[in-house]
């Protein structure tokens, strides 16, 4: 049996670059913080050409290449990319192992024969079309296939293994840093040099890791693959030849994606718990929206309605050139209400109603208000209704023993006449008259560090009809914030 390895060099860099829409052939470097220092962890081929190598500090790297772009590792995108590689690999064989980040090992079906060009056509070219840098190697053992893949450009099937291995750098075996340092101090830099060392001495002096390293070069060193269990996320993705300008064709594609996902999940007796829609636009921007389903389901009509409602109210400046729909799979019976979730007679209907409301009122204006930890009066944000309340971030409420305030939302615009710099007369839509008694001012300010800086002065005032109200002044603008009950 032969093994193929699908290898994405500089995997973390590629994952981060892909997310930012940067082709990996640009001058890029991935930074990583080690202790107090930030160092280059991975560099693109073009960056390496400028002398930027892993281990350099960010400043050193910039010194060597002023046009270098830095990226930060993005674990979520790395998972996405690994999934993509896995899914691509399954097109070759069902026996697929996620060996390491950026490394997929495939047990090739014995009945089929693959050449470098056929492998490139089946696996390499589609991934390269997605601007991914992929290398593929084939050999009689998984480890040798990995070595071939690391050496490949972009596909390599070695004909004579010993000739192939001899000049390869030791680093391809990725020994631990300790072992690597010892071998370096011994002057062992290639696999050929490693093979010249007596195996017994090697093990006596360097322990089992050295043996493992040597055995990776052996033809006998096959092993069963850890074939992957079913995925928990399923994705449909399409890059469009002709950009889409209107909603209709987009909905058509989405419907098709949903049906395909539905079939794949149905085969495994799974349902969708969450859906994530990503749209790619011509101007290199993306739109991503996660739909948390109130109850896991596989009802395509219902899922479609939810996406439809969202897209109906969505507009973009650029045309859509690609889309991706991902479903989080779950078992139909695994969900259970927790203490803070309420049961609905028709949770999907509720979710849909909320979506319609949000479409009407704009995003962020539907949900449960949560008080923010700020001195700014009445500072809140809306939390989605079907999420758990953010108990941990709710600030402790100050203990007040005064009258409760009934707030006007939004506050009433008002005109206030001043006497000796104190409010004397109020004119507003609902409350007007001379101010008979005053308390204040109470002053508050904040967010001075950016454009949202605010400053407010508050007064409590009594009107002749006995009502007590709260006035607030921001700059020259007066408002009636509320009345005391």
């Amino acid at each position, binding site marked *: 049996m032969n093994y193929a390895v699908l290898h994405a060099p500089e995997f973390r860099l590629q994952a981060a670059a892909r997310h930012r829409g940067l082709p990996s052939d640009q001058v890029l470097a991935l930074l990583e913080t080690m202790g107090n220092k930030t160092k280059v962890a991975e560099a693109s081929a073009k960056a390496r050409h400028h002398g930027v190598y892993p281990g350099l500090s960010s400043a050193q790297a910039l010194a060597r290449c002023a046009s270098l772009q830095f990226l930060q590792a993005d674990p979520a995108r790395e998972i996405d990319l690994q999934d993509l590689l896995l899914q691509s690999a399954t097109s070759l064989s069902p026996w697929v192992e996620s060996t390491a980040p950026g490394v997929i090992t495939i047990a090739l079906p014995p009945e089929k024969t693959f050449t470098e060009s056929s492998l490139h056509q089946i696996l390499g070219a589609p991934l390269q079309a997605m601007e991914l840098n992929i290398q593929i190697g084939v050999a009689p053992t998984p480890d040798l296939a990995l070595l071939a893949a690391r050496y490949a450009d972009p596909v390599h099937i070695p004909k004579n293994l010993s000739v192939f291995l001899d000049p390869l750098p030791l680093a391809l075996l990725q020994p631990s840093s300790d072992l690597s340092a010892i071998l370096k*101090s011994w002057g062992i830099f290639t696999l050929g040099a490693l093979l010249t060392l007596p195996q017994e001495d090697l093990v006596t002096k360097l322990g089992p890791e050295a043996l493992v390293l040597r055995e990776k070069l052996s033809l006998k060193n096959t092993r069963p693959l850890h074939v992957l269990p079913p995925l928990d996320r399923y994705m449909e993705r399409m890059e469009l030849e002709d950009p889409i300008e209107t909603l209709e064709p987009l909905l058509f594609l989405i419907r098709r994606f949903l049906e395909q996902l539905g079939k794949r999940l149905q085969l495994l007796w799974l349902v969708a718990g969450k859906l994530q829609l990503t749209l790619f636009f011509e101007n290199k921007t993306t739109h991503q929206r996660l739909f948390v389903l109130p109850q896991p389901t596989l009802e395509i009509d219902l899922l479609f309605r939810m996406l439809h409602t969202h897209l109906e109210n969505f507009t973009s400046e650029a045309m859509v050139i690609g889309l991706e729909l991902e479903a989080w799979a779950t078992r139909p019976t695994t969900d259970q209400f927790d203490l803070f979730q309420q049961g609905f007679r028709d949770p999907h209907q509720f979710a849909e109603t909320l979506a319609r409301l949000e479409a009407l009122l704009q995003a962020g204006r539907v949900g449960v208000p949560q008080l923010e930890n700020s001195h700014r009066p009445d500072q809140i944000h809306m939390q989605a209704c079907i999420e758990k309340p953010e108990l941990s971030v709710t600030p402790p409420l100050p203990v007040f023993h005064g009258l409760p305030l009934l707030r006007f939302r939004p506050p009433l615009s008002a005109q206030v006449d001043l006497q000796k710099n104190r409010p004397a007369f109020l004119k507003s839509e609902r409350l007007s008259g001379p101010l008979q008694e005053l308390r204040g001012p*109470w*002053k508050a300010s904040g967010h001075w560090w950016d454009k949202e800086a605010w400053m407010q002065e508050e007064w409590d005032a009594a009107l002749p009809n006995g009502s007590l109200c709260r006035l607030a002044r921001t700059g020259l603008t007066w408002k009636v914030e509320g009345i005391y009950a």
Partner: protein
Amino acid sequence: MPYVELHARSAFSFLRGGSLPEELASAADVQGMSALAICDRNGVYGAPRLHGEFKKMGRRALVGSELTMEDGTVLPLLVTNRKAYQNLCRLITRAQLRAPKGESRVLWSELPEFQEGLIALTGDEEGPLAPALVSNDRNQAEEVMKKLLRIFGSKNLFVEIQRHHSRGEERMVSGLRQLASSHGLKLLATNGVLYATPSGSEVLDLFTCLRHHTHLDLAGSLLSLNRERYLKSPAQMACLFRDIPEAITHTEQVADRLEFTLRDLGYHFPSFPVREGENMDWALRRETYAAIRERKIKNADSKFCSQLDKELRLIAELGFSGYFLIVQDIVRFARAHDILVQGRGSAANSAVCYCLGMTAINPVKEKLLFERFLSEGRTSWPDIDLDLPSGDRREKVIQEVFSRYGKHGAAMTANVITYRGRSAMREIGKALNFPEEYLKRFSDLFANGDFHHTIEVTDQMMKAGLPRQHPRLPAALRLYNRIQGLPRHLGQHSGGMVICQGRLDQVVPLENASMPGRVVTQWDKDDCADLGIIKVDLLGLGMMSVIQDTLKLSEERGRPVDFDNLNKKDAPTYELMQRADTVGVFQIESRAQMATLPRMKPKIFYDVVIEVSIIRPGPIVGDLAHPYLARRAGKEPIDYIHPELEDTLSRTLGVPLFQEQMLKMAMVMADFTGSEAEELRRSLGYKRNDQRLNRVLANMREKMTRKGVAPSVQEKIIKAAGSFALYGFPESHAISFGLLAYASCWFKVHRAPEFYCALLNNQPMGFYSPDTLVKDAKRRGLKFKPVCVLHSEVVCIIEADDSVRLGLNYVKGLQRQSAERIVMERKLKSFASLSDLLHRCALAKDERRILAEVGAFNVWSHHRRAALWEVEGRLDTGDLFANLPAKEAVPLLAMTPVERLESDYNGTSLTLGPNPMALRRAVLPHITRASDLVHLRHGQSVTIAGMVICRQRPGTAKGHVFISLEDETGISNAFVRSDLFERLRLIITHESYLEIEGTLQSWEDVVSVMAKDIRALDSPASVSAPSHDFH
């Protein structure tokens, strides 16, 4: 209505206050407040500065402190009299010394012991009553009130009320009024001031974030509600408390009771024990004259003796005899313990100090101005700074002072670390929630000196990646400017010690230093000096250690040197200086010094003194270095500024180089009295701000005008004074340093093996790395031998053939104990084989590997890799044949020269093999070698390359940079203009090997390259020796 603010915190409350005491003082001045009390948290850190400012304004600086209690509440205390002050200091000291730094807590149970004379306030939102009032727990509030009453009594306890326009505060005020009324206590209004002006609240918010390790977006209600806690005027406060006017009037009554100010500190320098029937003045006279005989001082003629009498009389008049005796006692201790000691600074102007062995210069012979050291107008104590060998020997002297005066009688002075440049931006960036990556880049990019005349902070920030339109950029810039100079934390001064008659902890609170066994005062050296607290500087100098070690080695090798009577007319020593062959010597080894030496061509000792002083930021700022050299070379006529100054300036060819000359000029041209000259001296050395100097200079100008001095002459004199203000350098100090510079050159010429061996054993020090020092020595013909387990000691030694053997201390990663074990085992019985050594010395794996890698086992192995092969693997401790030589075949190839070089740099930071450039020379035909530069003509285009050994950007060089490159033939120097540096900053600062293309500058035997382009050189080796950068 009169009002005195009695509860203010300064930035010396460390992250709990937003303004300096000086800012609070000027705000109080503007508001017309007659007095102000700063109550810093757990200390009286800011009190001296407020005192100093208020003294000038004729106002009273009241003293107080906020104490953190064991339950976390904060109790403000105010000081009524000296006894109360002593109590407060002792209480703070006790709490500080028993807790880790920054975590002091006062026990309620210990308050009664120290309450005498202290007035307590019930505090603000952190006060002891606050928790009970917030939770509306009347019973608990009563309990706390009773506790406070029991400790302080009703006369010394005031109920503090504050109003900050915050909703809900009236409940607190009303609760406090009820409590005051029920206990018959008086109300006292304060504003709980945290900053001088409203804008200070931004700084406080920044500090709040730093204190809580959060950022502004998350800090929420931790931040200031509004900007009301600034220093308000009496009218504003009266308006705020118009319903409780008595709370305002009580502030003045309390302020009247606070009689104590820092003028009444009660500090006394310790008396020195003298013989019965003798006083300290007599004892000093006896010791001085006895020393003339004991030390066999030459030239002690009548002139010298009359100077001694004059000095002794003045010392006695000023009451400083005890001080001299105590310093002499420290010097005596050092000498008795074989510790080299030499005074520096203005003490060298004193014949008494010379006789007592504190200084090495005869001031009469050198015509030094005694008034620079001590004058009749002097109110503060004179400075006697002692240079000691750095390291253990200096620590021994410091610990001796601690043991003599006790933990509460002596302390190191503090050193206030302030927010500057990168540290400021880093903290601001954290609080503004800038990405960590941006902050790291800012630090990385500008790690080596920020020069605002070459790059603005806004540009720096943008270069680091912050867009100009970033919404938080204005706030960042605002904060950056505001927090410059604000205290960040309290460190300890490098060597300043204060001692006291009796308890120092009654004069100033003491706290633990981060270094074990050290105690620091809460005030820095300027504060101590301003308050008349005497300081003895025990400074560590690496060169003193080198000289002491060189003397010892010379003696051991049978060629001792009489250091006190070193021949100062030694021609080979001056020739060395004239050639600028001064790598490794004291002071005159820097790039700038080496560029001046061939022009200066020192011929006598005083030339060395001038050389030491001339390459100082002061003279360069004042544009004085070049005139001196030009005049010396006869290219420019000598100008004494004014005929009356000829006597003062003749030694420096009319160029004022020393502070003494400056003082004399002021005395001659402006008729300054001794006191005025003293004030000029102090203002020249006062680095905090230039207002003080400006006042003195204005006086000087006025007096010169009155005297009819021409404006052009006045201008020259004032300009000279301005340049000295930044970097004052007295002549006596230059002489002391010149002596060390001369001596180190003498040793380099006449005791080279001993000198280099001592230099290597005292690293890190000086400008150059051990690698450069070794290469310099080798160029002088000295031999070095590598680290070897059979021959090396723990430190470097000189072997019989005059070669220096590197010590095991140079092997990176080899523990000191392991090195000592190797030497000890070898002395017990010689090692038979590598295996024998490994069995007997129990070295860690990494230690075995590194010793093999640097060739320390080569005596048994054919090559380093053979040893590496042999040391690998598990050691069988029960192997009976362990001491037999190993016979296994080694399958590894020997290291190549480049690999050996890399191993050397990796393992010892230096190589005894070829310079890395020698290995690349064949492929660098376009590069001119360092030694060939002298043969090229001025103005010729040239390219140099090498390992960077030094990058310098002197503060006075307007951002220009000097780079030294080393190749196999020597050192070449390049000058990089600031614009080129800014353009290629990263290449210059981060590459270990550089190729510099430019134009040759050859002038008066000084050769350098004016850089036009700089590139990273494809490294001959993956590692290099460390360079000395931007020091």
